[in-house]
């Protein structure tokens, strides 16, 4: 098959071909970058938190009477909840993981702010904390019940025995078994690692050190704590209603905050990412459809305006197959022009996004995928008009000349 005659035919109707090429170029630039960004957001949303986040709910409890007994309130609340049907475990917690509200501090592998250093989300809980979060210990044990301290005021230090996430352990003690090791805060106060959690997310989903977490055996400070309640799958709605009623009945003289599923916190924390992913996916789909329609329109137009030319070619011996191939090749040329320009546009757009908006640089595999995809879409869109062209009868050549 000769490309030259196709090329010169294209040049005769430059405007249409250029428009479709331009459309394909823009499409490639948009689609490749949009899919890339979407992919990253989807991965971010879908990564495991290490926590049994679909089966946990949380709420706060605050006493407000002058001389109320804070430890007694917490113990009685927890005893009550742990015995309720459907509850796997319940524990106090200073903050709710994945909620966007939390606390973090910096720590060091050696005293006097020396050695490796890393920040970590800190959570205060009791000996049931690990089970109530549904996180897995890869080594060590949870807290001893006697180590749990009920606080009267905000403490200057954490309790000396802590449980840390693997992410934090690796940051301070890379390639070592961190269990039993000691690390330090900025006052050189030592903390001993008595347990290591395989994987756990902290407070802020946009933070790159989200998986660095420390649990400490403290509750409070008075008069406030939060509770985490982990339930058996599928029972969360029933248990939430029952817990609320039971706790209010047990002691009306304190305030029970709104009960919220951890899955709600999680969804909200990722809501901007979800919005971005949904918008980008929609736009990507629409852009591809429009491009296909554009290609289809141009091909149809070309076939309609060239019936005489096709008829003549058929009359002088071209087979149907040759006509189909002619139009498919023509379309391929237009698509390829668009794709070449589109690659430059896509790279430029990707570079611009990464410098301007702090997004990671475009991965070239996506570009390759985009090019292949558009070639296929282009050929599919041109298929029907090409078949239509092949049906033009050789008699057309004589009819209107």
């Amino acid at each position, binding site marked *: 098959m000769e490309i030259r005659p196709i090329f010169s035919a294209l040049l005769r109707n430059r*405007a*249409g071909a250029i*428009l*479709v090429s*331009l*459309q394909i170029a*823009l*499409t490639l*630039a*948009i689609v490749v970058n*949009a899919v890339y*960004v979407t992919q990253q957001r989807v991965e971010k949303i879908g990564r495991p938190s290490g926590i049994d986040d679909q089966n946990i709910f949380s709420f*706060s409890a*605050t006493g*407000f*009477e*002058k001389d109320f007994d804070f430890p007694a309130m917490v113990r009685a609340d927890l005893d009550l909840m742990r015995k309720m049907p459907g509850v796997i475990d319940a524990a106090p917690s200073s903050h709710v993981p994945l909620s966007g509200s939390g606390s973090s501090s910096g720590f060091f592998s050696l005293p006097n*702010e020396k050695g490796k250093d890393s920040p970590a989300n800190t959570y205060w809980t009791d000996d049931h904390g690990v089970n109530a979060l549904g996180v897995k210990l890869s080594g060590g044990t949870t807290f001893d019940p006697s180590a749990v301290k009920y606080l009267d005021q*905000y403490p*200057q230090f954490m309790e000396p025995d802590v449980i840390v996430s693997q992410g934090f352990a690796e940051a301070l003690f890379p390639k070592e078994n961190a269990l039993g090791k000691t690390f330090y805060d*900025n*006052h050189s106060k030592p903390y001993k690692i008595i347990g290591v959690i395989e994987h756990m997310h902290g407070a802020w989903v946009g933070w790159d050190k989200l998986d660095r977490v420390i649990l400490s055996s403290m509750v409070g400070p008075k*008069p406030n704590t939060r509770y985490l309640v982990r339930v058996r799958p599928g029972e969360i709605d029933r248990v939430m209603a029952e817990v609320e009623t039971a706790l209010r009945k047990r002691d009306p003289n*304190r*305030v029970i*905050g709104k009960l*919220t599923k951890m899955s*709600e916190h999680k*969804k*909200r924390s990722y*809501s*901007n990412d979800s*919005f*971005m992913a949904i*918008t*980008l996916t*929609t*736009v990507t789909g*629409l*852009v591809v459809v*429009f*491009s296909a*329609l*554009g290609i289809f*329109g*141009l091909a*149809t*137009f070309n076939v*309609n*305006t060239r019936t005489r030319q096709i008829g003549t070619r058929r009359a002088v011996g071209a087979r149907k197959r040759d006509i189909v191939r002619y139009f498919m090749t023509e379309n391929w040329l237009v698509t390829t022009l668009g794709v070449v320009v589109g690659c430059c546009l896509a790279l430029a*757009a990707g570079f611009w*996004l990464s410098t*301007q*908006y*702090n*997004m990671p640089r475009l991965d070239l595999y996506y570009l390759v995928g985009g090019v292949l995809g558009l070639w296929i879409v282009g050929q599919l869109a041109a298929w029907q008009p090409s078949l239509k062209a092949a049906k033009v009868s050789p008699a057309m050549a004589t009819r*209107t000349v």
Partner: protein
Amino acid sequence: MFAYYLRLALSSFKRNPGLTALMVFAIALGISVCMITMTSYRAAAANPAGDRSSILFSASIDSWDPEDPYDSDQKDPETGKPLAPTQLTYRDAQGLYASKIPDRKVMMYKAGGIYSRPDKAMEPEYIATRMTTADFFGMFETPFLYGGPWDAKADAGPEPVVVLSKETNQKAFGGENSVGKMVRWHDREFRVIGVLNDWEPYPKYFDVSNGSFTDMEGAYMPFAWGRVLELGSDGNTNCWKTETIDSFEAFLNSECVWFHAWFEIREPAKQREFREFLDNYVIEQKKHGRFPRPLNNYLYDVSGWLKRNKVVEDDNKAMLVLAFAFLAVCLVNTVGLLLAKFLNAAPVAGVRRALGASRRDIFWQHLTESGVVALAGGMMGGLLGYGGVWALRTWYAQFEDDVGRSLPFDSMNFLLVIGIAVLAGVVAGLYPAWRIGRAAPASYLKAQ
């Protein structure tokens, strides 16, 4: 003539209804995506301070760690230096508040506690409370439903007074005029001095440290109660220094930042004077061994402050760019379709030319046609856009601190996108209309 072109356009639409619908739909989709992202962008980019934006100032002074800047990601565009903390220490909030230069001033932070009524007529509830000074209400123009703000004397006392939001007043007093009545805060009693009307200035510009669209506080109390009641921040607290904090007093005297201060300064000369005051304040403090970093102070007006805090997120901007790129694809598509449609109907144009229509007539006739397509696409896109905004609001409404409530069904946006659509449609029609106007009539007549 225009009416005649319109009639011709309509009959042309009837000739190819499918193609016409496709063009209208293409523009409509492009426009609707633009409208949704524009609404979201404009909501984040709004400046609720209005014309007071240029006389309200927030101070930012660099009290941070000499080893490690507060914000290494964000640099001052002019000097290239890392920016200073967006909150103040207690000592500096007091120090700046003491200045006599501003016309009005406020220092504040977010706290919270359990409210109830002495007669037990209110279900006790945690209510977020802004600890602030008397000028807050005037400076940020809070609307009062009942009563009014407290005065400087109440700040100094501090007197046990409280201003409630409309929502809190509803919970505590069923919405009636509660001025003069008592509420309980834990085990103390406070007198209601004022009740605010609905007030939702989004973004929440006077304090964006917990997000730009978070709920307004349910109550307001004189700042000095924070120290008396030993109330830490329920907002955001950042510390850098290794120092012993074993009491609330020690916490207040630490280098931890958790306070905001705003200053209303109307005259430019006074604004300059206040900037000098900031520098002198820091230089003076350096003599006492504080402020180890180089002099790095900022006085932001409201729009500068919103920019400093990146209230318009990168995602907002990236999506706006993407939306317009998508509109561009839709338009290129439309140009192609218009061209095909016009050329298909070229014999008709040929006949009109042969009967005496000038090239210019043909050009205007076809441009009118594409304008009508664009107008239809724009209106449909605007309506689709409203639908999209509604869907977005519904989707955001499931979350606490509903961002969606700040998204307006803005008729301004609607008119704007229709304007964009018509403009874009006419631009898209230029080439096809010119092309068809240039065609020689004879060639088409011959073929008939």
